[in-house]
């Protein structure tokens, strides 16, 4: 089986084009069957919601390609949002409050690094552990109650419109652009791929594997914190119960986009298409006024179908190669 960069790129491109096709088809189906699907209101709310999932997905791709896994992003987002809300309440300036939120992200990210990179704990378990811990701390901090936000900048993250498109969408686009640039042009990007596909070889080649992996987890956590700001902006308040299970949606988008869980290969564009697909699905279901549980069934079903196709395709590739 040829593992050259070129053939990996071709394989990724196939996944991406498949996703693009799926997106277009789904969009078409929804537009026809659901009245009110093609409406500005629907698009706006979907885009706003998708934005913060999207930002987390972009950086989750980064972590996954490096061979890691970060399931604490939801907890970080909520906790960071809380930190910001409480800081604003306590009279901090907007900038300081945002700084506090990002600081929370950095803190949790560092903790994840210590466990996964430092102690060598399996990232699934370690990040589930930190997710639990910080989710619980977040709830305990405010005793489960929400805190209202009245700072305009933060609120704008979630709801302001620039040329008719929610601010969040621009921020999400920026996030994806950033990650794409990292992979395309920087040494960090190549190193992430290297570490993900073969950490031993990377280490022997002189790469500081621990530093590269840590960077991935830190970026993941800080971006999750930033996403948390969008979340509270959109909600108008920091709700400690929010975003439960969001990491699974994030993971779904990334996997749909063709990034494997074993690391070393993946596509940022694919993740973006995955995010869009899930968002279109959500918006469509909303417009169809389908009961909430259809969301679950649909997400699960789409993921299963996508993975099956991917597996079948991989099997066929192996036989041929």
């Amino acid at each position, binding site marked *: 089986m040829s593992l050259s960069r070129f053939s990996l790129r071709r394989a990724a491109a196939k996944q991406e084009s498949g996703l693009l096709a799926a997106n277009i088809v789904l969009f078409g189906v929804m537009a026809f069957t659901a009245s009110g699907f093609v409406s500005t209101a629907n698009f706006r709310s979907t885009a706003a919601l998708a934005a913060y999932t999207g930002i987390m997905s972009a950086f989750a791709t980064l972590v996954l390609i490096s061979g890691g896994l970060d399931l604490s992003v939801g907890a970080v987002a909520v906790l960071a949002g809380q930190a910001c809300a409480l800081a604003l309440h306590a009279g901090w300036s907007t900038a300081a409050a945002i700084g506090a939120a990002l600081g929370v992200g950095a803190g949790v990210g560092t903790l994840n690094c210590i466990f996964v990179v430092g*102690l060598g*704990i399996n990232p699934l378990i370690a990040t589930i552990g930190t997710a639990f811990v910080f989710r619980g701390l977040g709830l*305990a901090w405010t005793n489960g109650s929400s805190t209202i936000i009245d700072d305009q900048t933060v609120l704008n993250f979630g709801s302001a419109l620039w040329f008719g498109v929610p601010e969040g969408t621009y921020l999400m686009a920026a996030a994806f652009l950033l990650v794409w640039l990292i992979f395309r042009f920087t040494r960090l990007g190549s190193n992430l791929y290297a570490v993900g596909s073969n950490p031993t070889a990377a280490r022997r080649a002189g790469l500081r594997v621990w530093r590269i992996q840590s960077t991935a987890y830190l970026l993941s956590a800080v971006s999750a914190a930033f996403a948390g700001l969008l979340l509270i902006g959109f909600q108008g308040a920091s709700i400690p119960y929010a975003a439960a299970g969001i990491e699974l949606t994030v993971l779904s988008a990334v996997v749909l986009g063709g990034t494997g869980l074993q690391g070393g290969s993946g596509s940022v564009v694919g993740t973006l298409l995955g995010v869009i697909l899930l968002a279109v699905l959500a918006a469509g279901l909303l417009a169809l006024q389908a009961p909430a549980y259809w969301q679950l069934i649909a997400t*699960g079903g789409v993921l299963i179908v996508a993975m099956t196709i991917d597996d079948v395709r991989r099997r066929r590739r192996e036989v041929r190669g």
Partner: protein
Amino acid sequence: MNHVLVRGRGRVVRRGLAYDQTGLMIAIVVMCLVISWKTPYFFDTGNFSNLGVAISYGGIMAAGFTLVMICGGLDLSISSVAALSGQALAFGLTHGWSTAVAIAFALAIAAACGAFNALLMVGIGINAIVGTIATQFLFRGLAYAWGGGGAASTAIADATVSNLANGKWLGVPVPTYIMLSVFLAIGFTYRFTRFGSNVTSVGSNRVAARRAGIRVGFTMGAAYVVCSLCAGLSGVLLVGLNGGSVPGAAIGIELTVLAALVIGGTSLSGGTGSVFGALLGVFALGVLANGLNLLGVSPFLKVASVGAALLLAISIDSIRQRRRAYRDE
């Protein structure tokens, strides 16, 4: 416990209980002592039966989950399977079926979920983490759909089911007996039967197992089905505990179960693990939660404490493994 001297290496190998579990048992004892020192309500039969009930439905799931994990797989859909089985039970009972048939139906639905998981993870070969997350969504959605759409639960007043969940036998809650029986059955199977050996072999080295003629697909598939059956049984009990079938039942339990297993010494990569350790892990987390409750700690911190316990246990294990690696070479 026998001590056997290993020639040539001069190291003592303990047979029977693994080294890790001694530490865990000590931790449990210490926790019990600390809690009872701080509050008089811990060592109380009422409290113990609460504890027994509280750990039972997670514990039953943990028994089955251990089998899957040792076999090299993972099943994060157990919470949804439990809820779906609960819906099946409610369906049967509200349609006038006898209790036994309704329960059998609920378990059959659970087994079907397990078979579906097996089809995806074993038959097609989808990665277990993402695959069972997907089925978790799917089954949960189906549970809600079956339950009528909303979060409303169907009230069930069946006597047998209620007795199973709330009854007591010789002072010990029935769910605890059920949990212990499940652990006994699975533990025995794992230790003494050929299937149990195969589970370990497949989890440790799938290729070698296949070459040796072991039916890898059957073994893994069976493990997934057993796991789901345990989740189904749990779901049935939950209906009794909740007084009805709640579509949102057991959300998030899979992570506590995973924590219990890891604390008990089962490895995420498969091949090594202990059913007894899982029981200890369930117990440890149960005592922890119970203690925090009695000490008036915010219920939210309970969630955090499970995470902290998990991280602590796995950090200790990690450090010990590193030290062992150095010692060996």
